């Protein structure tokens, strides 16, 4: 019973924290690129560069860092305010 509860709790925390796992890094990078196309602000440049690093980390099978860089890319893309 205790073990079941522990398992349930761990999974309950783990799954939301890994949300987005089904969308690939490449797809998310393409979206960041599309969302900031033509935008030459600092945040747009940074978003594209973080997305590029994320793809490179993914290529080296470093999925954790890839996801973290992609998250940063998406945050800066949002701050850039989309296409300009």
């Amino acid at each position, binding site marked *: 019973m205790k*073990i079941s509860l*522990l*398992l349930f709790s*761990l*999974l309950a*925390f*783990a*799954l939301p*924290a*890994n949300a987005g796992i089904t969308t690939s890094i490449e797809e998310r990078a393409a979206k960041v690129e599309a969302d900031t196309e033509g935008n*030459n*602000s*600092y*945040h*747009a*440049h*940074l978003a594209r*560069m*973080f997305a590029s*690093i994320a793809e490179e*980390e993914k290529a080296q099978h*470093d999925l*954790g*860092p890839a996801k*973290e*860089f992609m998250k*940063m890319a998406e945050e800066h893309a949002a701050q850039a305010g989309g296409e300009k």
Partner: protein
Amino acid sequence: MIKRLILVASTLSLGACASHTNINIDELADARAAIAASKAAGAERCAPKLQAKAVSLLYWAAHEYTETGYHPEENTELAERAIAKANEAKAASSKNCAPPPKPKPKPAAVEIIKLSGINFPHDSAALTPASIAILDQAVDTLNRRARISVEVAAHTDSSGKDSYNLSLSDRRAASVMNYLASHGISADRLSSKGYGETQPVASNTSAEGRAENRRVELRVMN
């Protein structure tokens, strides 16, 4: 089996929380300082691509430094590239970068006292009896508010030539001002201006709109 499940779930939980990009490490002090200096020089606005490159290299270096499987040469190279880009960004910012435009101050809102119902005969600045009754009320208002100065502003609709409308509105504004002055309002508190058809408040395509646009109002100037 259960132990394996616990391990998988724990790994997922912790993996999601782990950070790979802690830039506050001693090895990156110079890069952080260079980026702070370029940012202070306005690089985010004046050299955004270079500054973004510097920052992304800083974070990448931070990740590499904290990664297992330490590659000191690669890490140092990334940090040095971050510093070089930050220095480039700073230098670019000092050239050809105008200060950000200051927001234009908003013009102060002008109080307008509407004189609804003032009409003139066609092509005339003569006051009608109905208009005089309204102007008498305006005299009362100006006597009550003895500290204000007003501009008598007259407007026309868009029928006719611009120059004709401007001239006609000038004459009508002056006519109203003269009436007010002749009924006890100090000339020091009065001015007049015709705006012609330049400031419509309604569409000139309908008779109702044109009637709204033909108007006289008092603009409080202080």
